[in-house]
């Protein structure tokens, strides 16, 4: 297990380094002077010269890369060209909102999708199975921005049950929570469908295995057989899917964040791209990617922990 951990951590670190390299070289592949690009078209020549010196742009490229890596390792992702604030601080202000949104969105999808998939698999072709099947395909097919808009219209505008925009007053938990409901619903809905389908398929396969018949032959309670035995095996491929989905959502929340005017990483990247605020784009993409890699790593370790065969084969 230890060797496995070391191996996976090393691999993840290597991927992060590769991402840094790509993000770093991106500035050089864009035609034109990096300082001009970084500061945007409206920068004065003095500002560009000051920036070039501060950013070590007169140094050879490899030195610049080493300096950049060094800075990143110290948590310094550069400085916002407009506000002159630290990019790290700006991202840290927003990341919490995104993580809260993704966790709630994925969380409710898991709480609903996994049991639905199980129940559908236990009684294939029952009415529950059929309804789940239709709803799954339906929710997967509808794009989340459409769900966002409709949810906004129905629950916030017409019924006025929930607030429409923003993330709530800082420090007020109840208010923040009520602001979370609609966007989390919107980004989680299609995942209910994904998970239900995925869990159903792997549960159907596992329920046909001989060891499930064994468990039933030993008289175990059906609930134990389904959730204690079958799901334990069937959940393994789903964990990979959830890990990748979770990681992907970190940057894919952009629609929900824009529609609900929520602060967050997705909206930050979107706004910075629009404003050509490159240090923030660079930093935010790096943080989002690293989080993705971390979540995938975490899900792989979780699988290894749950499945002794995986744990020992590596």
């Amino acid at each position, binding site marked *: 297990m230890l060797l496995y951990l070391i191996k996976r951590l090393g691999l993840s670190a290597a991927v992060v380094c590769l991402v840094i390299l790509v993000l770093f070289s991106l500035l050089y592949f864009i035609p034109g002077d990096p300082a001009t690009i970084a500061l945007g078209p409206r920068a004065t020549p003095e500002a560009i010269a000051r920036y070039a010196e501060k950013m070590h742009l007169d140094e050879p490229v490899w030195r610049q890369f080493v300096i950049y890596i060094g800075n990143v390792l110290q948590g310094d992702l550069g400085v916002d060209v407009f506000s002159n604030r630290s990019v790290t601080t700006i991202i840290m202000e927003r990341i919490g909102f995104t993580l809260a949104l993704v966790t709630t969105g994925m969380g409710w999808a898991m709480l609903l999708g996994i049991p639905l998939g199980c129940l559908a698999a236990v009684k294939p072709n029952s009415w529950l199975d059929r309804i789940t099947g239709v709803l799954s395909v339906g929710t997967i097919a509808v794009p989340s921005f459409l769900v966002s808009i409709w949810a906004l219209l129905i629950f916030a505008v017409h019924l006025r049950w929930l607030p429409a925009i923003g993330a709530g007053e800082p420090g007020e938990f109840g208010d923040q929570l009520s602001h979370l409901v609609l966007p989390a619903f919107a980004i989680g809905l299609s995942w209910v469908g994904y998970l239900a389908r995925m869990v159903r398929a792997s549960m159907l396969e596992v329920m046909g295995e001989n060891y499930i018949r064994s468990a039933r*032959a030993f008289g175990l*309670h059906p609930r134990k057989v389904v959730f204690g035995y079958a799901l334990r095996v069937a959940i393994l491929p789903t964990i990979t899917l959830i890990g990748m989905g979770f990681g992907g959502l970190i940057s894919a929340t952009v629609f929900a964040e824009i529609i609900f005017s929520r602060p967050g990483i997705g909206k930050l990247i979107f706004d910075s791209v629009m404003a050509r605020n490159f240090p923030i784009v660079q930093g935010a993409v790096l943080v989002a990617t690293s989080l993705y890699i971390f979540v995938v790593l975490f899900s792989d370790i979780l699988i290894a922990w*749950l499945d002794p065969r995986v744990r020992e084969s590596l």
Partner: protein
Amino acid sequence: METLLDIRNLSVDFRTPRGRVQALRDVSFPVRKNRIVGIVGESGSGKSTVLWAILGLLAKNAEVTSGEVQFGARDLLHAGEAALRAARGEEISVVFQDPMTSQIPVLTYGQQMLDILYRRRNVSAAEKRRLAVEMLGKVGIPDPASRIDQYPHHFSGGMRQRAGIAMALLTGPKLLLADEPTTALDVTMEAQIIHLLQELQHELDATVVVVSHNLGLIAELCDDVVVMYAGEVIEAGEVREIFHNAQHPYTRALLECDPARIDDVSRKLPVIPGEIPDLTRPRQGCIFAPRCQRVMPECRQITPPDVERSAGNFARCHLLDGPLADPSWPPPHEVNTVGRGQETALKSATVASAEPLLDVSALNVQFETMGPIRAKLRGVEARHVDAVLDVSLSVRPGETVGLVGESGSGKTTLGRTILNLVRAQGGSVRFEGNEIRNMPEGRFKPLRRDMAMMFQDPVGSLSPRKSVRALITEPFQIHGITGVDLDKEAERLADMVRLPKPFLSRYPHELSGGQARRVGVARALALNPKLIIADEPTAGLDVSVQGEILNLMADLQFEHGLGYLIITHNLPVVRHIADRLAIMYLGRIVEQGDTAELFRNPVHPYTQALVEGVPQPDPDRRRAHVSISGEVPSLLNRPKGCDFATRCPYVQDRCRGEKPPHYELEGGRSHACFFPLN
């Protein structure tokens, strides 16, 4: 004697797309207390369906149309789900066929056994664990207190089945059901498991129902036998009555077909012609009539009576009673009732003198077990294991060589290496005098026409989307042979393997095991090879049809002068077809020689153990003890001295320290033992 379980008039249908399959029809038999009852039958006989019906765990498309299963005072068929669940695992427990797939891979044995005891609320977890450890010890698992925390994949096949038995007996059930308990195991392991079941039954006074197709196991283990055919009980009785005084023509035929019983190898193997009937169609008369040697016109019309000759012994046949009774039936035990075919064609005299077709010498194959980095980290120097070690073997044209060994002996690896599918690290493989070892595929491909492979899994090795016609002409396409009429070739090959023409347009899932095998033989023969390497050619086939395949192979050999290398663990079968045998153990050939000689007079203790390890289909020849104990060691811990030293009953100090070389004896015989027997 008290009856524990009484099955009466049990009928079960399966709803399938082809229609209703009447899988069980009017099955009745009692299971008496403290007895071991064997249900014997071939595939499709419904023997496993009976087992699952007792437990109320039939497949979802099954429907019990009539009958009752009395267990004590209850009728299990009409008990509610909750009552059934209370009985399962507690009063009735099961040992499963395949311990590799019937134990959940992600839970430790401790957890699984704790779960089985979930109803014992007044017993503490520590006490449950103690019970589980005790039971694991009882079934012969060494160091149970620590092994209980391991997962199934940490256990070898034999150990898993022991653990499976421990799980089944944990609650002290009144009735133990065993579904083909040794089918997935090796011969030496099978003997140990049979012995263990016998011992435990004595000790625990349990009542056992064993389902098996293995006549040897039934004869060795059971007190009473129920013979099933196509969903009916056609004969039942005390074990000696069944094996020595069988009344039903099917039982007679089944016993006569078992290669383990036939000592005379000069004749072809007997077979029961025909196939098991289609159970979706309505039937009339006797179910066995279409395949029966003694069929009379009335058999096809009138249902035969159940003729009881003493309490509990009965058979369902017109020959025994009524207007059609034949006083001379059944004939004495020694007389054969099944057509025995002609004598096997004489081997051409040139065989012995001919130049070898295949000549393997001092072949070595190594597998890497870990990467170089991991080996460094763990300080392991030898990161390779010897899968095949110093193997020398030859096959002449027209000769059949049997390569025998248990799982993990390297026999399949050797076959694959000869066919250049695995790289060898040393030695030589010559085909018709030319070195072919590790030849680049481009140069080797034309040779594949001369060396064909028959694969182990007959259905799995055929593409499910291709028709039989396409499958048996595929070799022509693979080798880019044009200018042949493929349709004609397909018909010629189908003819050769005696596959009726309409079968050419069928798909693999529409074939029976025996038919799929024929397709495999036809594919191997398509390009007129000189050498055929057959991996377990009769695996998964019923006794009554495996003879057909072996006879067919023998005929084809005679006609075409083929050389066969037959890889198998089935000694009784290989005895009938092989001229010479090579016995493999842990990648090494421990004994090699003429088949008859080897059986009559085994020199290596392992050969002796294998020869004696086959359970005999004769209840009077039960073994009092198990010839060898233990298991094949892992290749990772190859013993320092003789590979067999860890299990050899005659082991001496020298064997443990030194590896015996290959000793040559006269008559092409060789062995690797310091202290040869006889």
